């Protein structure tokens, strides 16, 4: 399959910039090109092969001090995108930034040629092998799998002289399935994403098998406050989004952040360190610079329990009288806004086994549903345990069902029960250890 051609994308971006230059104070062209090859398996077998090619540009201008934005994938009429951006700038917000006059990319390796080289036939074989492995464990599991390859190029040019581009590859393996027994539905999913093909597909399938095995036994749980361990996936899926919202420069500026008045204060367990770090090679969530050309960096958000930093893009930083932290990310149709890149929770000092051993009755939570619902600003979370296991006398005894866990991320992390000594990658943008809450509200259905 053809790789993405950076040169023509550059030409396109330059042509748009040339048309805007001279008519506005500042102009920036964000251009992207990508080719995706998803190989998908449904109901235990190959279902479809896809090729998705995408290409588009976004133009941000500052005219008379105001910001206008237009984006298009209709690349036969470049004048239209320029005229629209200028027209809209008359209504736009006041610009509080200067685009970077040069872009100094952070050295980070994100294009792995192994992803480019892998043949569709190999991808198909890998997917089928994962499915066969799970079905060899239990043929009643209805499996789905995916082997996805993404190759992309991002190009950034601005009228002040800044220019940069980078390629990124990502390779994703997904294996999982559904096991229905009576009216009991069990769905287990394992997935991993890296820039290259170095993901152990057998290990991924075995992890799915391990969870299916543990989950087959459904055990009751009591409604009361009890210790709850979140697995790395649980940490990523349930807890981190609350920090993301609270520490966004935008929330701080608006006064909607529950942590904005705590900057510099130790309000969390001293073992808790949370870092935004998009400089990790081989991790698809990384990038050499953000979507407005500011170099990425390692930014501590929570440093040993202390609220250390909020994250900013150029405009939000300008409004707040701060500096951009290299966190200006965007979709092509939107202006950049503060967003985290790769988020890492530092490991602690407890072995997972020791953590479990100290629990008389508790839960190990892998995923929850409905947690996006509650009030994300307040730190409250509440949801149904999707995949979670009962801990009894230090041992995992089976899966819990019809069980809800609720708490407040900020209040309940003041003092943690513990943090495990190993952090694991979750997908392509989070690395986290197991986190133990000494006590959270657990409620369960007592009758049908």
């Amino acid at each position, binding site marked *: 399959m053809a790789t993405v051609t950076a040169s023509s994308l550059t030409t396109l971006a330059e042509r748009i910039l040339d048309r805007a230059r001279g008519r506005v104070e500042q102009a920036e062209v964000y251009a992207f090109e990508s080719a995706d090859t998803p190989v998908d398996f449904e109901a235990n077998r190959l*279902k*479809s*092969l*896809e090729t998705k090619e*995408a290409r*588009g540009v976004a133009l941000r201008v500052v005219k008379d001090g105001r*910001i206008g*934005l*237009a*984006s*298009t*994938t*209709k690349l036969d009429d470049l004048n*239209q*995108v320029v005229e*629209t951006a200028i027209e*809209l700038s008359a*209504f736009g*917000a006041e610009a509080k930034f200067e685009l970077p006059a040069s872009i100094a990319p952070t050295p980070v390796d994100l294009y792995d040629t192994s992803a480019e080289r892998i043949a*569709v036939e190999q991808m*198909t074989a890998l997917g089928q092998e994962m499915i066969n492995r799970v079905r060899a464990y239990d043929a*009643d599991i*209805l499996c789905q799998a995916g082997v996805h390859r993404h190759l992309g190029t991002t190009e950034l040019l601005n009228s002040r002289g800044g220019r940069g581009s980078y390629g990124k590859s990502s390779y994703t393996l997904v294996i999982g399935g559904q096991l*229905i027994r009576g*009216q*009991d*539905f069990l*769905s287990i999913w394992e997935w991993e994403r890296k820039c290259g093909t170095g993901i152990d597909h057998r290990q991924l399938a075995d992890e799915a098998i391990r969870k299916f095995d543990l989950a087959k036994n459904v055990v009751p749980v009591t*409604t009361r406050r009890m210790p709850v361990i979140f697995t790395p996936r649980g940490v990523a899926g349930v807890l981190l989004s609350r920090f993301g919202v609270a520490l966004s420069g935008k929330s701080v*500026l*608006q*006064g*909607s952040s529950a942590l904005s008045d705590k900057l510099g204060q130790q309000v969390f367990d001293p073992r808790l360190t949370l870092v935004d770090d998009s400089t990790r090679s081989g991790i698809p969530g990384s990038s050499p610079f953000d979507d407005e050309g500011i170099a990425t960096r390692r930014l501590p958000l929570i440093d040993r329990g202390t609220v250390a930093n909020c994250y900013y893009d150029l405009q939000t930083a300008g409004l707040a009288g701060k500096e951009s932290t290299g966190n200006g990310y965007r979709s*092509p*149709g*939107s202006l950049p806004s503060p967003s985290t890149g790769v988020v890492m929770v530092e490991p602690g000092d407890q072995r997972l086994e020791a953590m479990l051993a100290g629990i008389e009755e508790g839960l190990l939570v892998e995923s*929850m*549903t*409905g947690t*996006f*619902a*509650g*009030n994300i*600003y*307040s730190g*409250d979370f*509440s*949801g*149904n345990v*999707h995949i979670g296991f009962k801990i009894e006398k230090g041992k995992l005894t089976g899966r819990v*069902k*019809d069980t*809800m866990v*609720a708490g407040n991320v900020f209040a309940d992390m003041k003092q943690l029960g513990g943090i495990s000594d190993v952090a694991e990658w979750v997908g392509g943008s989070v690395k986290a250890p197991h986190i133990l809450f000494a006590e959270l*509200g657990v*409620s369960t*259905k*007592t*009758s*049908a």
Partner: protein
Amino acid sequence: MELRQQMEEVLRGHNADYVEIRVEETESTHLSYRGKDFEEIGRTVDLGGCVRAAYKGGWGFVSFNNLAGLEEKVEMAVRQARLVGKETTQLAPVPVVVDVVPLAHKRDLLSVPLADKKRLMDEYIDVAWSRSPKIQTTNAAYGDGRRQVTFANNEGTFITQERSRVTVRVQVLARENGNVQQSRAAFSSMSDYDAMVGRHAEVADAADRAVALLAAQPVTGGEYTVICDPKLAAVFAHEAFGHLSEGDNVYENERLREIMVLGRRFGGVHLNIADGADVAGQPGSFKYDDEGTPSRKTYLIKEGVLVGRLHSRETAGKMGEAATGNARAQSYRHQPIVRMTNTCIEGANSSFEEMLADTKLGIFCKDWYGGQTTHEQFAFGCAEAWMIRDGKLAEPLRGTTLSGNLFSTLQNIDLIGCDFEWTESGGNCGKGGQTAPVGQGSPYIRIQKAVVGGK
């Protein structure tokens, strides 16, 4: 060359069971505010297309922005399908249609000056801020868009459909000490800009609700009798039952087919759940789905009994049922998958007042912030909630989440109101990496023994 002629030409003579092409162009404008300040205005034009081919039950799919070389893209999709297909392609038959479905708008969204749209939003934001010094901030957004999709397949169907939508959303955050609470007003129309105008009282009400939530206490988790307002009940129908009725979840899943066997009783005789895109003016409304199948109303549950499910041509074909017009794609970048359109619980004979008076201890849950299902289990967040004590609304609650097991919960709906309404702004449903606008409607319902999450 004219698009129709071009599409028909490249669709001819392929060694595949089925080939279709979609070409899509959208134009959308958005305005957004951060607090009182205007933050962003942007316009997006998106032009692209896709080809999908089936061969012996396998699918190939190619999407692109560059419309040149359509012939080779068709060939590529066919080649991919042929690599996959080893069984048989079974597509339920649908009529060959040649049709043009123009916009049904009352007032062209694009003809309304941007300055008017901005002024309207400025007014709403002022109203929200004027309600209380405890208003911490607002997040407001206006969006409108127009989408034209041209569909052609090798059976001779050729359809051009144009749709539009305008939405206004004002989210209000209130704060007292460290406690932050939120509420929102959301308006939407498929056809009429004027439906967004003059709704200041509803924005004021949203602000007042956010402030009121500051005094609300977290609910004590456990099992309760719960009354849901029409908005929340409609989400329940969507999340809890709608997804399980989607043919793609069922057709290759022997166990689920046994559970979802037509004729099985799921609830009382007062329970009727239906889905259909053939309702005028709802977010999930259209004349033809993304496989060219005409839309229609499908009863999922009638008088408590499972009577139907939602299908694409493939899931219908494989199950020996009729296509229902539920194959939808978010855009040309995606293959159509089985989706709900406008899903509702139909009205019965009770009323909110009767439900309340009949509830000694329970919770009244109103509106929602999102929902999710894992087939048998569902969970959604309530925007507002109150304890019910001795048949009357008592203290307000915050952070209330409702969850449960689908099968027992449907059986436990003991009262259904006569006061049916569609939720104006509908919702956006995510599935398989695609988002689709959906309509949702219901009357008030009462559920016995629902699990409510809290401290």
